[in-house]
Each structure stands twice: as structure tokens, then as C-alpha cells.
């Protein structure tokens, strides 16, 4: 039996590798059409960020928030939901943290309060979609995207009108030094946020597989009817899933504000946050929505993000290429055999 399970893992791993290769090949084609050298680009994208010490540290720093947003999506899928609202929940979390840049407090209070308010705002943003789903039957794909846009404009207007940075118009106030997570390696962007991120990952794993609430989430994801017959309140489970997801996404926003130098703030057009939620979606899909898979996949995507600056500078390829390749990998993954395992879970969202 262990052999059977090992085989299943290996097949899954092989499928992901196939999808990644396919996505990168087509991505390479896109670069050729754009007049760039894909070999050069891929070299710059992966080699420095995975082989040098500094590169690895940056890779981990980029993996930090997307581990958390990946968990948002993964907990959703486990409950049979397609929660793509990590983006907006993460914006709200970041807002919750950055607000303390405008408030004077005893310094010991900054970090815990940032954390709590970020988590709460993330959870609120998640539970709105949860309530709409559970009690009004609103498809979570539509509602979470709407909520992402609403969050975007709320945070953007707060940035401009409520908490603008007095010296730098391109960002919000920064959280004070007492409200920042310590750097693990000076001169990099790797802060203690990675520790928080991994602790949340372990917590989520424990929750899903070792507790009755996690049991209910997985049961509903596999078979809502049988769950109902077993006395499980399916609506409440949907809410749990959105709340847990909102929590992890909110923490992701906290980590970006409190844990990433140099700005410790939110920048114009939310540019330092934008896309982190959807990166998490990619990570979760590549990692088969499993915490261990998510950890590995986050390093892969983190490396791409860390390497994208190199790629832009040395291979002159616009760093948006990274997201293009991610999309292609997901399309390749959607083909079954490749995506056997999660397909079983999310047959139809309606």
C-alpha cells in the first residue's frame, strides 16, 4: 500500500514536471516572438535564484506570502470551493497592518496588533464570500473576483486620501521600525515573515488532517451529500473554509507590509501586492493543494519571482513574462492525467 501511495506521489510529481516543461516551452515561444532569447531568460530566471546564497534568500522571501495565499486556495478546494479571493483578502490584510504606520503606540504593541488586525480584515473579506455562498448561493468565483476589485479600490483610495506617505507620494505611510519583522539576513529581503509563513502552513496542515473541523472540511469537499447525511452542517463548513482562507491571506498581507524592506508600506496601484494572491493559486495547483506540495511549489514560483528582476535586467525580458509562463503551466495542468487528483475534488463550482 505504501508502494501504491508512493507511486501516486511520483506520478503526480511527474505530471507537474510535464506541465511545467510544457508551459516553459510555449512561454519560450512567446519570448521568441517578442524578440527575446528564451534560453538566456530562463537561465537568468532560475540559476542565480536557486544556486547563489543571496538568490536563495530572495527566493524564500518571495515564497513567504505565496505560501499563505496558496493555503487560502487549498483550504477552499479541500472544501469543494474555488476561492480565488486571496488577492483581495491579502490587500485587506496589508491595509490592516499598514494602518499602524499612522498610529502611535507603545512599541511592543505594533507587531501583535498589526498581525491581529491584518488577520481579522482578511477573515472578514473571506467570510463575506462565504456568507454569500452559503446563504445566498452566489458562485464564489464571481463573488471573490468582485471582492478583489472592491478591496483594490478601497485600499487604493486609503493610500491616496487617508494614509498617504508625507514624503513619498508613491506609497502609504510605512510602519515604524518597531512594527517591522526582523531581517534574517541583512542586505536581503528575507525576514522573520518566512517563519510565520511556515508556522501557518504547519498549523493549516494540522487543522486539516488532525482535527474534527478539518475532517468536516475534507468530507464536504469530497461528498457534500454524504456529509449532510452524517450530520455535518455543510454551510457552516463553507464558512470555516472561507474564514481560514481569509486568515492566511490576511497574514500574507501582514508579511508583505511588516516583513519586506525597503518600503514597509503599500505602493502605488498596490504594485508591491498585486498578483500575490494569484501566485498562490498557481502554487496551490502545482502543489496539489497539499501543504507539503505547496511548500515545494512556493520555492519554484518564489525563485521565478526572485529571478524576474535578473531576467529583466540581463535578458531584457519584461518581468510580466513570469506570470505568462505561470498561466501556461496551469493550462497544461488542467489536462487530466496531469491533474487527476484535484479534478476529482472540484468537478463543478456551481
Amino acid at each position: 500500500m505504501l508502494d501504491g501511495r508512493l507511486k501516486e506521489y511520483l506520478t503526480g510529481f511527474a505530471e507537474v514536471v510535464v506541465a511545467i516543461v510544457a508551459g516553459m516551452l510555449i512561454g519560450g515561444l512567446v519570448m521568441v516572438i517578442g524578440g527575446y532569447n528564451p534560453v538566456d531568460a530562463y537561465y537568468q530566471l532560475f540559476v542565480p535564484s536557486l544556486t547563489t546564497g543571496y538568490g536563495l534568500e530572495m527566493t524564500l522571501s518571495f515564497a513567504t506570502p505565496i505560501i499563505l495565499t496558496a493555503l487560502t486556495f487549498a483550504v477552499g478546494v479541500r472544501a469543494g470551493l474555488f476561492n480565488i479571493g486571496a488577492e483581495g483578502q491579502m490587500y485587506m490584510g496589508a491595509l490592516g497592518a499598514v494602518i499602524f504606520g499612522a498610529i502611535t503606540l507603545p512599541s511592543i504593541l505594533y507587531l501583535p496588533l498589526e498581525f491581529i488586525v491584518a488577520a481579522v480584515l482578511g477573515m472578514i473579506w473571506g467570510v463575506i464570500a462565504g456568507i454569500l455562498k452559503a446563504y445566498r448561493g452566489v458562485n464564489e468565483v464571481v463573488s471573490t473576483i468582485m471582492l478583489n476589485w472592491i478591496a483594490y479600490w478601497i485600499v487604493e483610495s486609503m493610500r491616496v486620501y487617508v494614509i498617504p506617505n508625507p514624503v513619498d507620494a508613491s506609497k502609504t505611510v510605512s510602519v515604524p521600525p518597531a512594527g517591522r519583522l526582523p531581517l534574517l539576513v541583512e542586505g536581503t529581503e528575507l525576514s522573520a515573515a518566512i517563519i510565520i509563513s511556515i508556522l501557518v502552513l504547519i498549523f493549516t496542515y494540522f487543522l486539516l488532517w488532525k482535527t474534527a473541523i478539518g475532517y468536516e472540511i475534507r468530507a464536504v469537499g469530497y461528498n457534500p451529500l454524504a456529509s449532510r447525511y452524517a450530520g455535518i452542517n455543510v454551510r457552516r463548513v463553507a464558512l470555516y473554509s472561507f474564514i481560514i482562507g481569509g486568515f492566511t491571506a490576511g497574514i500574507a498581507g501582514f508579511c508583505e507590509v511588516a516583513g519586506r524592506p525597503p518600503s514597509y508600506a503599500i505602493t502605488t496601484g498596490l504594485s508591491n501586492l498585486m498578483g500575490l494572491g494569484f501566485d498562490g493559486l498557481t502554487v496551490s495547483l502545482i502543489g496539489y493543494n497539499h501543504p507539503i506540495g505547496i511548500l515545494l511549489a512556493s520555492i519554484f514560483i518564489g525563485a521565478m519571482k526572485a529571478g524576474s528582476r535578473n531576467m529583466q535586467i540581463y535578458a531584457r525580458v519584461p518581468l510580466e513574462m513570469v506570470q505568462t509562463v505561470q498561466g501556461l503551466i496551469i493550462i497544461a495542468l488542467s489536462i487530466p492525467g496531469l491533474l487527476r487528483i484535484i479534478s476529482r475534488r472540484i468537478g463543478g463550482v456551481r
Partner: protein
Amino acid sequence: MKVYPDGTVALRGVDFHLRKGEIHGLLGENGAGKTTLMKILAGVLKPTRGVIEVNGRRVVFTSPSDALKLGIGMVAQYPALVPVFTASENIFLGLSRRMVSRERLVKLMNETGLKVELDAVAESLPMGVRQKIEVLKMLYRGVRVLILDEPTTNLTPVETEELFATLKKLRDQGVSIVFISHKLKEVLSITDRITVLRRGVVAGVVETSRTNPEELAKLMVGREVLFEIKKKPVKPGGEVLAVEDLWVRGDSGEWAVRGVSLAVRKGEIFGVAGVEGNGQKELVEAVTGLRRVEKGRVVFLGRDVTNRGPQELYKLGLSHIPEDRVAMGLIVNMSIIENAILGLHWSREFVNSFGVFKNKRIVEHALKLVKEYEIVAGNLNSPARSLSGGNQQRLVLARELSKNPSLIVAANPTRGLDVASTEYIRRKLVDLRDQGKAILLVSADLDEILELSDRIAVMYEGRFMGVLDSKEADVRLIGLMMGGYTLEQARGMRGVENA
């Protein structure tokens, strides 16, 4: 017409010949391969080996429509209609515009006596009518070979008689009909020839006029398996469940249960018979807290539990063996161990005060159930889907009984199971009754009801046609009630018959 299909598992080297203008019975137990054989003939499945010949010509079907083009059509047990389409839309589906003619259809209806309301939406029609639509759909396309898979399962006795008359008429018009069934009586009354299948091989081909039920039963079963369950005389105790004037809506908002009252006492099995779809499912769901009660009361152990939700009822001592173990009873993608605590997963025996599982206790519990109920399972960490149907049902039963219930609600508990598991589960239910448990048994299997119940209610269109003692009950009486006669009317009719 000649067929030599050869599937590796379901069928092994089966020959089947169908003549023009005959009604050919295909008889066999559940799992004998009847449906598989016919699905191959209708192009739904592909044979692993073997050939099909139509009018002496060898053919290969890649889809049902290939078979349809050659005039072979199959009506499945549950008609494959598009639920939101009207009858005529269903019949005309897939035809080109010039093939669509309402007049031709009306003419066909008159010729065959298959009359349906053409503008009625399929999902609002009873099963019998849907079957007619399906047959019309086939005939409109000029089908000359009609395969009917267990067509009477969902029909009342009256509808069955109508169907038989139609089939005879069609046969006289030259249509060849394959009639798949496991019901000896029906096969004997309607067919011209019978092929009996047993475990994927042909056990015999006989002329209907030259055979008898005993011979067929022997061919079909191959050995004496008809078990008899010995029951001690009923000693009912106090009332465990009382349902008073219950009104419940179905999925599309119609009244599915219309004023049902019943009482189940300690130490008795209360059976609810009826053709499927007459409100039994909704009744069960309402009693077990899964469906809203609109009017009336459910009283369990003297407490009013109307609309209290399943969790609370389970805690009070209700166990539910649902009608579909794969869809409702188990989460087949989760492990056997995890399934062993489904519904018990908040029990303090298995979680601590933080809601964290006590792993050792859970594994012990699963091992205990597997041992006690003789569940054949490889690794308890493997998903429940790896179990056979019989073992899955044992797991459900084991889990539900481990709740030490005072009331067991069982819906079609042996459907689709092999003989050994059926016997095991029926015996278990009787044991429980003898131990003083109250059992509400809802089943579409008349034999099961008659064999196990102490009192029997027959449900028809959401109402009880009457409640009778099992001593009085027989197939004929219950059959009449299933067709919509009240107990008094049915008694009267039987009286006339006997006189």
C-alpha cells in the same frame, strides 16, 4: 441476428440470438450480465471479443447511434430523457428539421397505443410515461429491435399491464423485443423465448411455452440460495418514534409527503413499501432531520424533534442507513478509518476538548468494527471506495450500530448486494429487533418488506394506503396498494377474487 460478445469480467462467451417479431426474455440475477450484454448490443459498451451480426451482416458499433441507425434501440432502466425538455422535444432530439413531423408522431402514437402528452415537460411526468416517451423515441426512428432493461422496476402493476399490452401489439407489428428482467412471473407472462444468464454465461435458452417457474429459477440461481430468516414472535414495547400528520416538500417544491402518520415501537420492524418515488425518500429525510417538515410533528423517545437537524437526532440515538451507500453513507475517497467515525467525529471518545483527534482511539474503533462485522478490507488506510459493495454496506451498518441507537432507519439496505451480504444484513436487522431496537425499514423490494416487517405501510403518492399486520400481508394485497388502492379497497378486491 447473432451475437458473440466476450467481456472479460461481466460476460464470458455468450451467444444470444434474437428472431424477428418475438419477445425474448433475458433472465438473470443482479450482476448476471444481462445489462452488460444488452449495452453491447445497443452500442453503449464495446465487447472485448466477439462479433455482432444484424440480419446476417457483421457490424461494429462505436456508439449508441450506430446501433440506432441499424434499428436497434435500448430503453434503460431509468429513461435517458432530457428532464427539462417536453415529450416531443425529447422524441425529436438529434433529428434534422425535415425528419421532424408532429403528424407522423401522432400517427405513430395512435398505431401503437402509446399515448403521451407531447407538450408536457419530461421531469414532471411519472416514470411510466417517461418510459413510453423513450419507446416512442425509438419507434419514431424506425427501430425494429427494442431492448427494455428491467422496464417494470419503476411501474405500478397497472402501468405494467399497459406496457405488456403495448409490447404484444408491437411484436405483432414485427418488432423484435428483448425484455430484461429478474422477475420470473413477468418473463413467463410476456415472452416467447427466454435466455437465462448466470454469472456471465448462458445457463439455458428455453421456449416460454415449454418451461415453468421452477426450471427457470434453477437455471437462474444454479443452487438453492433462497434463505429463510427465522423471526421470533413480535413483542413490541413502548413507542420510540411517532410521526403525526407529516407534510414534506420534494426537491422541486411539490408535496412529496402528504399527511403521513406512523408509530414505531421497541422490538418491531415497521416496513414502508411502495414503488420508488412516492415520497419514501422525503419521508426518510424528514424523519432523520435532513429535510424540512412543513406541517406535522416528529416525536422521538417522547421528545418533539420536528426540524431539529440530524446532529441532534443522532445524539439522541437515531441511526440512519441511507439508500445509497456510495453517495450518502460513505465518503468513498476517505479512508476506511475515517469513514468509521463519520458522524461520530465530534464524539468525545474521538476528539479532545480542542477538537483534535485521538488517533489511537479512532484506529481501535475502526479495527473493532471491521472485526465484528467481518468486513473484508486490505489496509484500513486505503479509501473506502476500494471495498466491495457488500463490505461498504457492512461498514455503514457497523458504524451506525456502533452509535448504540434506539431507532434505526434503514432505506433499501440491501439494494444491489450479493446474496451473502443481503442475508447478513437482513439477519442483523432481525437480531436488532429481537434485542428490542425499533426499526423503520423503507424498501422498494417487496420481498424484503414481507420477509422482515412486523407491520407494513404502503406508500403511494405521498400517502399511506393503509397499515397492515404482516400476517395479513401478501404480494397481491400490497401490489394493489402500491398501485393506488387503499387497504379497504384492496381487501375488497381480494375478497372478490377469492370468492
